[in-house]
């Protein structure tokens, strides 16, 4: 057993820090620090900088351009990226779509898509959920009918994160309605510029734009864009969603939230003293840090132990990870006092500007906090709601 980071891990951390210090543009860090939905240009600029160093796709195997890092190194890199306020890159492409393509896709699909994802040239979105198929994903109704060398797709997708910024959509479609729901699903890679696609914003509770409705009306998709075999889509989707659950424990994000929160608590005052010195606040913050520490070790266990990295353990850390992201955001609002209640949509991003603009008294360190806290209500819903995770835990681990 080695229960601590080893000296070579610490050397790697220093290497990451040095790289970020020298290569992360201040403008990008300034925007990322606020935690609004990232701009397409920022994602692409940053992906290209990372790709030049060979670091844009840490989770990929080396044969497809990954850096060959251990899971612990990837964790350290992520932690340092968050601490330096690097933009959160298009994880959908790098962490969810790419593994599906390099695991189940054809040689042509790999050659076409992987380099473009790696360099941030092509950004992806995910066409999974539908108005009638949320947690019960297998009931999806978007149809794809084979017609010669192409599929004709009709239906509607929803909750499509970053759909308005995406070039491609990995899409679950029903190719056979005569078999049981799970067996009739396939995966298609669809160009968002195809005729018949309409993308409409769904403004979220933070008054920002991140998710969309995507309408597919007789969209023609080349048959070559089918991933793997027809009817196997459900198993590919489960593979992808397991990756999503592990990724979304988001411990490096929460640790960064806590660092930001501590900074805020040193600058905000209560009863004439810095809030950080208020015992009640300090205890709440302490409890959050303790709970995050437990989760961090749970993630490190999953990362270093292949035997326990099952879908079920991923559900444990997904559930708690999502809850902690919410608690960190909520405590940040509490720390900001009155200004934690001010609506403050992204001044540089796409938003539904109902509230005009943020009050001038809101300090720069508080910008974005209220929007973040509102949007975080989604963390316990997306990627399989926490109730779905609990059912998975009960059925798979506990065999109830």
């Amino acid at each position, binding site marked *: *057993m*080695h*229960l*601590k*980071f*080893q000296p070579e*891990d610490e050397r790697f951390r220093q290497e990451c820090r040095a790289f970020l210090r020298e290569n992360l543009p201040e403008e990008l860090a300034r925007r990322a620090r606020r935690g609004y939905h990232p701009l397409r240009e920022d994602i692409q600029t940053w992906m290209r900088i990372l790709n030049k160093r060979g670091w844009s796709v840490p989770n990929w195997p080396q044969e497809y351009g990954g850096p060959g890092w251990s899971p*612990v190194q990837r964790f350290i890199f992520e932690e340092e990226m968050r601490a330096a306020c690097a933009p959160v890159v298009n994880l959908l492409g790098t962490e969810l779509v790419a593994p599906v393509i390099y695991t189940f896709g054809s040689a042509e699909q790999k050659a076409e898509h992987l380099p473009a994802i790696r360099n941030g040239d092509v950004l992806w979105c995910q066409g999974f959920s539908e108005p009638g198929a949320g947690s019960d994903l297998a009931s999806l109704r978007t149809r794809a009918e084979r017609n010669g060398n192409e599929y004709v797709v009709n239906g509607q997708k929803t909750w499509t994160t970053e759909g308005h910024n995406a070039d491609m959509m990995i899409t679950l479609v029903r190719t056979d309605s005569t078999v049981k729901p799970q067996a009739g699903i396939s995966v298609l890679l669809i160009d968002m510029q195809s005729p018949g696609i309409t993308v409409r914003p769904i403004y979220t509770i933070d008054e920002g734009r991140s998710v969309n409705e995507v309408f597919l009306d007789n969209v023609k998709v080349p048959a070559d864009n089918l991933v793997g075999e027809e009817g196997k889509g459900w198993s590919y989707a489960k593979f992808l969603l397991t990756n999503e659950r592990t990724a979304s424990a988001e411990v490096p994000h929460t640790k960064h939230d806590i660092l930001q929160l501590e900074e805020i608590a040193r600058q905000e005052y209560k009863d004439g003293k810095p809030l950080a010195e208020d*015992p009640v606040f*300090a*205890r709440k*913050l*302490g*409890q959050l*840090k*303790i*709970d995050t*520490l*437990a*989760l*961090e*070790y*749970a993630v*490190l*266990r999953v990362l*270093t*132990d292949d035997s326990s990295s099952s879908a079920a*353990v991923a559900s*444990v850390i997904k*559930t*708690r990870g999502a809850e902690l992201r919410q608690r960190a955001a909520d405590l940040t609002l509490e720390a900001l006092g009155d200004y934690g209640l001010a609506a403050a949509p992204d001044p540089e991003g796409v938003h539904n500007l109902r509230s005009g603009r943020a009050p001038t008294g809101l300090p720069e360190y508080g910008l974005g906090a209220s929007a973040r806290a509102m949007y975080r209500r989604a963390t316990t819903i997306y990627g399989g709601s926490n*109730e779905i*995770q*609990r*059912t998975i*835990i*009960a*059925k798979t*681990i*506990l*065999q*109830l």
Partner: protein
Amino acid sequence: MDFQLTQEQEALQDSVKRFCQREYSFDDRRAIIDSPIEQLSAHWQTFAELGWLGAGLSEEAGGFGGGPVENALILEQFGKALVVEPFTPHLVALQLLSTLAPTEQASLIEAMIDGSRRVVMAHFEHVSRGNCATIETVADFRDDQFYLSGHKTLVQGAAHADTFLVSARDGDGISLFLIDANTANIEREVYHSLDNHLVADLRFDNVAVDPRNLVGARGEALQAIELAVDYGIVYLCAEALGAMEAALLMTRDYLKTRQQFGTTLNNFQALQHRMADMLIETELSRSMLYQGLAALESTDAQTRKAGVSATKVQFSQSGIFVGAQSIQLHGGIGVTDECAVGHYYKRLFVIAQLYGNDDYHRDRFVGLI
């Protein structure tokens, strides 16, 4: 990082598991806790013969070359079987002696490991509430002798100890004394704590102690006590983990057999989700135990204390949650003395408070104390 056990560690784990299966069923345990308090449990000698009493002590210190991980492995199994023999108090005393006086006390350490001597720390008092620095027992030095007066409470393992490591205020510091349990003017009042462990209150009324019985430097024992208690906390948490896992699985099995409303209870989603929450807390606790064991390796006392306190907060909270919900899901049978689940709860409840509860350790973690 690597969370895999070595082959030797797996062998140790297996041997403890086999012992518990063979010798420590719930009925075997009942016979032990029902026996008169004067009666010595025969298992201590078995622990010695199997090498467990020194398994977690380095060879330089007179042990068999393991470390805290070995002790945690033993205690996790003890937690599953609800072992009542005072293993953690033994480890805390060993830690104290090997920190403060490894050479001077080498033969005593050897005797503790072979089971012929039983030493426990008598430090905490009613006023302490988990804080190592808060004690009122005093050592008065006059005519070349120390005279100890004070009242140590809920001393774990004291019922059958032959020797106490007693702390006392000595000027501005705290000194530690090795005192024979039969010394004049010590009153030992033995009782059971909630979890059926034997504990004792010790009252010292002007007890004369020779300066040769001082352990370590005069007035400088506090840091070593804090260190030993930190080890003790992590060991109690390892034991709690075993108890939580056992209670969880026991409850799972019960839900699959208990019939109500024409079906077994495991088919109700409210109960499934409660079980999932219990599993989440248990898995996070296991993770936190590894964090706590890592913290013990730290040479910096502040880092160690923060990591150990975080561990105690986690276990104080999740242990009570898992224990209480295990009773809840059992229903009426869960609150009976004949059902093991209540005994898990009681042990988890006591562990949650021992050496400082979650409030104390959260404050220590954030530096408010």
